[in-house]
């Protein structure tokens, strides 16, 4: 099996935040921690695009490189995971990550930064698979149940894909070939017409 990857199709994402909600619910993520979020470029402007972002499970992960206690590891499937027992919550990984994936829950009465929490590709962490300890620290381990990440499987428009990188590339290629290219096939142009087009006058309207 190749490396596990996420792929978000900006032509399809409708900014419903279903992926964010699915992730929160699936892993019982604490308030203030967002393992996944939807980012919109040119919000409110015709032609805006949204994309769902979480840990991208980098091949050469900068978080792994900067961690002073070396608590990161990469699973056989290429998923970047970390050991919360070792994490000191220093926040270096947050500065290093270009996607803002590492999150820090507030721990204690004075807003002390807790141990880092991030997307696990729904594959838990270094605890026995599907154990209570694993769920408490890292969330549910769906990969060990033969399932893919909840965010992608919940995506209504299938904008967000998750799984074997080669398979995703094939799915995406087939999709783009079938639909053509650009917004005229799927997206803003289809719904509202090309940019600059005059809105159609309603029937019977006075000019």
């Amino acid at each position: 099996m190749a490396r596990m990857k996420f792929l978000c199709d900006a032509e399809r994402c409708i900014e419903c935040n279903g992926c964010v909600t699915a992730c929160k619910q699936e892993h019982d993520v604490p308030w203030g921690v967002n393992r996944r979020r939807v980012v919109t470029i040119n919000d409110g402007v015709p032609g805006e695009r949204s994309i769902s972002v979480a840990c991208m499970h980098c091949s050469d992960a900068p978080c792994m490189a900067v961690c002073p206690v070396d608590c990161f590891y990469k699973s056989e499937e290429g998923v970047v995971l970390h050991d919360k027992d070792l994490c000191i919550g220093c926040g270096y990984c947050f500065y290093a990550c270009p996607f803002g994936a590492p999150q820090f829950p507030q721990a204690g009465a004075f807003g002390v930064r807790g141990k880092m929490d991030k997307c696990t590709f729904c594959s838990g962490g270094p605890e026995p698979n599907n154990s209570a300890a694993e769920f408490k620290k890292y969330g549910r381990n769906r990969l060990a149940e033969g399932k893919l990440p909840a965010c992608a499987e919940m995506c209504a428009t299938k904008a967000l894909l998750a799984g074997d990188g080669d398979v995703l590339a094939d799915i995406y290629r087939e999709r783009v070939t079938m639909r053509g290219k650009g917004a005229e096939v799927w997206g803003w142009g289809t719904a509202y017409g090309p940019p600059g087009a005059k809105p159609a006058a309603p029937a019977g309207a006075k000019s």
Partner: protein
Amino acid sequence: MIRTIATAAVGAVIAFGLAGCGERPQVIEYKQGKYQGKADTQPYDSATFKGDKAEWERVIKNRNQNQNEYKRTS
């Protein structure tokens, strides 16, 4: 006497001026750290798959194709 002092002074100035030339490179050589935490189990070492990697890969592959609506509708 004056000549000796002058020579010594010039020598000292030259030595001081060239002192910077002996600077060593200050770029740190980066070495990748090694994971220090607990070992993790494989996803197929679960109650569902009982260590059967081939079966796990087959299930994940099928699940992957569920995201392809062109296959689902045909």
